[in-house]
């Protein structure tokens, strides 16, 4: 079975073709596409989230790269939510209409289910069950994944996402936005224990997270440091603060993951989302989980961030079980994972 997947839930316009026999045949984000002369030669700079003008060229691109015509595609999957209503509307109406005109089944996919199943796109997919930590600019969630379609949200951020806390603290440190990775490289020259940040929501039970307070703590720390050392702050002090922040965030995530693993009884932890690329997070998590004898896996980064491949894959999982939509389509900006 060959499935075309379409993702337009937020910033990225993405499409992919997944084949159940041959695996992933093509996948593209609009931002990566080298537009050819057939699109007019001169390509205008399109606004972010202008999915309408971006979607057709990249669907064409993945179809031609995978040598797929309408007859080769067995179903069309599109992200129906959660996300921005205007953005979701483009992908759902396009996906549903194309499936109708080609006479193929269409299936609505939950964006987070796509993320949870993304590790399955790897050559050596992790067996179920596992705990997944999704940490990115937009998400901080711990999910108990027992199988396809069997998910339980264990905990999530009640305010800022982990990646957002990185980006905003980076901005406070005068690094360009979004500056999560720049903050991490600044932290490399930081001296440990010069500053001490709190580990939010770790002193009480539960798997919910909160990272907004770390940003405010960073702001207060910076103001105090400027009063003491002068403005602009010496590079070493900025690095010390960056390190203290990063350590607090990483340790908080590790504490929550250990709790989630113990609560679930699973033997495997999947780290996904842009923040999972953070080297300090990876090494600290490995250290903590080795003690628990837990295997830690990371999907490759291009499957961690928003992409069409995960939607095509999740769509295939639904289509093979006979799921398909009727002729109507309904984007769901708010869509709980277990519905």
């Amino acid at each position: 079975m060959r499935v075309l997947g379409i993702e337009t839930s937020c910033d990225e316009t993405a499409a992919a073709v997944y084949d159940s026999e041959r695996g992933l045949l093509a996948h593209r984000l609009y931002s990566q596409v080298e537009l050819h002369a057939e699109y007019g030669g001169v390509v205008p700079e399109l606004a972010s989230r202008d999915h309408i003008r971006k979607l057709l060229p990249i669907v064409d691109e993945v179809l031609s790269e995978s040598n797929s015509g309408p007859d080769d595609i067995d179903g069309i999957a599109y992200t129906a939510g959660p996300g921005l209503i205007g953005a979701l509307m483009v992908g759902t109406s396009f996906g549903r209409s194309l499936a109708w005109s080609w006479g193929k089944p269409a299936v609505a996919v939950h964006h987070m289910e796509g993320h949870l199943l993304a590790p399955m796109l790897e050559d050596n997919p992790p067996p179920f069950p596992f705990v997944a930590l999704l940490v990115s600019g937009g998400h901080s969630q711990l999910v108990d994944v027992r199988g396809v379609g069997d998910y339980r949200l264990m905990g999530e951020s009640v305010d800022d996402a982990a990646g957002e806390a990185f980006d905003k603290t980076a901005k406070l440190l005068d690094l360009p936005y979004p500056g999560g990775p720049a903050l991490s490289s600044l932290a490399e020259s930081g001296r440990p224990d010069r500053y001490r940040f709190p580990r939010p929501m770790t002193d009480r039970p539960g798997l919910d997270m909160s990272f907004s307070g770390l940003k405010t703590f960073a702001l207060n720390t910076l103001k105090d440091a400027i009063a003491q050392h002068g403005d602009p702050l010496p590079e070493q002090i900025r690095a010390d603060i960056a390190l203290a922040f990063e350590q607090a965030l990483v340790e908080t995530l590790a504490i929550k993951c250990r709790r989630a693993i113990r609560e679930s009884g699973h033997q495997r932890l999947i780290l996904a989302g842009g923040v999972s690329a953070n080297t300090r997070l990876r090494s600290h998590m490995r250290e903590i989980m080795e003690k628990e004898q837990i295997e830690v896996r990371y999907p490759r980064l291009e499957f961690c961030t928003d992409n069409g491949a995960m939607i095509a894959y999740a769509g295939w999982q639904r289509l093979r079980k006979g799921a398909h939509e009727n002729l109507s389509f309904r984007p769901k900006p708010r869509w709980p994972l277990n519905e």
Partner: protein
Amino acid sequence: MTTQANYHLPNLEAQMTFGALLGRTAPPSALVRLEGDLGAGKTTLARGLLRGLGYEGTVRSPTYTLMEPYEAAGRHCVHFDLYRLADAEELEFLGIRDLLAGDTLILVEWPERGEGVLPTGDLRIDLNYQRQGREITLIPQSEIGEGWLARVTSEASGFF
């Protein structure tokens, strides 16, 4: 006519309480511009305001999602953060026109990123970081804003 009002909010609790007061006194439809630097407490104030409207669920930062819709006691509220907009034109893709035409309380963080598309609105709220707490300034931009401010000042007297 009240031109503007100024309050000192000494801690997080006061920020939330003042936000709730804004929510309780809010008109059914208005555009609120929330201005202030990173960490000034814009999202905290919005969270308090939504509590005042009667919304009890989680109020997440809208920085990544750009907008978060809420419904409480039959009222609609949308919380925007335009920080990640590269161009005000992108507001069109977020459906801003429909929202402005409907009965919705619209809260906008980083409204300057929507300049040219986003209207002046009804109430401007400036938040400023202080060593202890935050300073909040309410500046009405319309008759709706003036009426709202009058309700706020009468309820706030004695508490803030």
